[in-house]
């Protein structure tokens, strides 16, 4: 939102036109300013509001997305530099008809209160369970160490992620 302010001197901003690959779709960005963050472009230019904006300085993790499979704070990525890279947001992790297993585990374990931090936590948990299906509690805590939640106290978030991991392991063992 701070980005919407008219620059001092006004009218001399660099306009950019480029295409981003978001959740497997080519999304054209026109009339964007070249210094806009990926977070700003996702929300304000592309209308994808699942990714949340809180601190705009990489402190809170609410804006976590996957960039070429790596979790990053989209507020710290220049949108134009994400051209040609694979961007996945929380919308891209969500099945068309409901919730994925991690999202469902958050509901089942009561890991959501106000819900503002949840999309970032879901993305962080997704990448953890992809890389470390047997994640220990310590590894879960480290994986979400960049995601601030001011409501839940993290206990239920950790048990939700551990629960989702266990369910995946059981499902695999059953095959």
């Amino acid at each position, binding site marked *: 939102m701070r980005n919407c302010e008219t620059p001092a001197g006004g009218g*001399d901003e*660099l306009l950019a036109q480029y295409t981003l690959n978001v959740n497997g779709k080519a999304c054209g960005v026109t009339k964007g300013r070249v210094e806009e963050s990926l977070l700003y472009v996702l929300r304000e230019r592309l209308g994808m509001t699942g990714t949340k904006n809180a601190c705009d300085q990489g402190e809170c993790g609410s804006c976590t997305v996957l960039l070429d499979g790596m979790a990053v704070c989209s507020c710290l990525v220049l949108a134009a530099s994400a051209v040609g890279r694979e961007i996945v947001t929380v919308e891209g992790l969500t099945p068309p008809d409901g919730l994925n297993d991690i999202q469902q585990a958050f509901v089942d374990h009561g890991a959501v209160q106000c819900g503002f931090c949840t999309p970032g936590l879901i993305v962080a948990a997704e990448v953890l369970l992809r890389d470390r299906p047997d994640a220990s509690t310590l590894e879960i805590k480290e994986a979400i160490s960049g995601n601030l939640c001011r409501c839940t106290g993290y206990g239920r978030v950790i048990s939700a992620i551990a629960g989702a991991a266990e369910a995946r392991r059981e499902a695999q063992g059953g095959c």
Partner: protein
Amino acid sequence: MVEVNYSQRRPSTVISIDRIPELKGWRQNGDRIEMGACMTYSEMEDPLFAAYVPSLAQAARTVGSPQIRNAGTLGGNLATASPAGDTLPPLAALNAQITLRSLRGERITTLSNLITGVKSANLGRDEVIVKVSVEAVDGPQEFLKAGTRNAMVISVATVALVLDAARRQVRIALGSVSPVPLRASAAEGWIADQVNWESPSVPDKEAVEHFGELVASAATPITDHRSTSGYRSHAVGVMAKRALARALS
């Protein structure tokens, strides 16, 4: 990017260097390890890299959060030139060589010549940091950091220690306790004479204590919102003793 988000900086030109292969990752070149300016903290945590430059790997692990470590780079840490830059003490203790390039040519500089003050780097407007080169040191390395918690913390004080068995040197650099990364030269020289280099150890406990005192007295910290000057000096002394003990164990 934070300054841009907060409209404190409005770039007139942006050049993305993200996709230049030569600036990415790291490679071994003879007895040296070369790191591209765009090497991320996450890449420094890789066990293969950590085997060669453990102090940098340890420092990288303490930076921000996984999200920050996936995006933040070695070149960025250098150019920012913050007194609290976590890779800077390891680079100082490793005698890193930093390669800068512009249309005028290439130059190689040291950390102490590059970083001249608080957030002040001797970097021309037309120059980019290309790579950082360190020796693959024969001997253990340690990095310790004091902060208010384990994650998302800006250093209150840091210590990087390199035991260079081939040169019979103990090199120690301090972070967050002066405007620029600091080598505790007096402490280095003194402890090198105390180490039994045949099977690296310090026989004398009092010598280790004195080493901590020398390191603490080398620090010139300030008191700010993160800590007091007295605590920072104390912390680097304690961490220096701990790093030495770990390196010799």
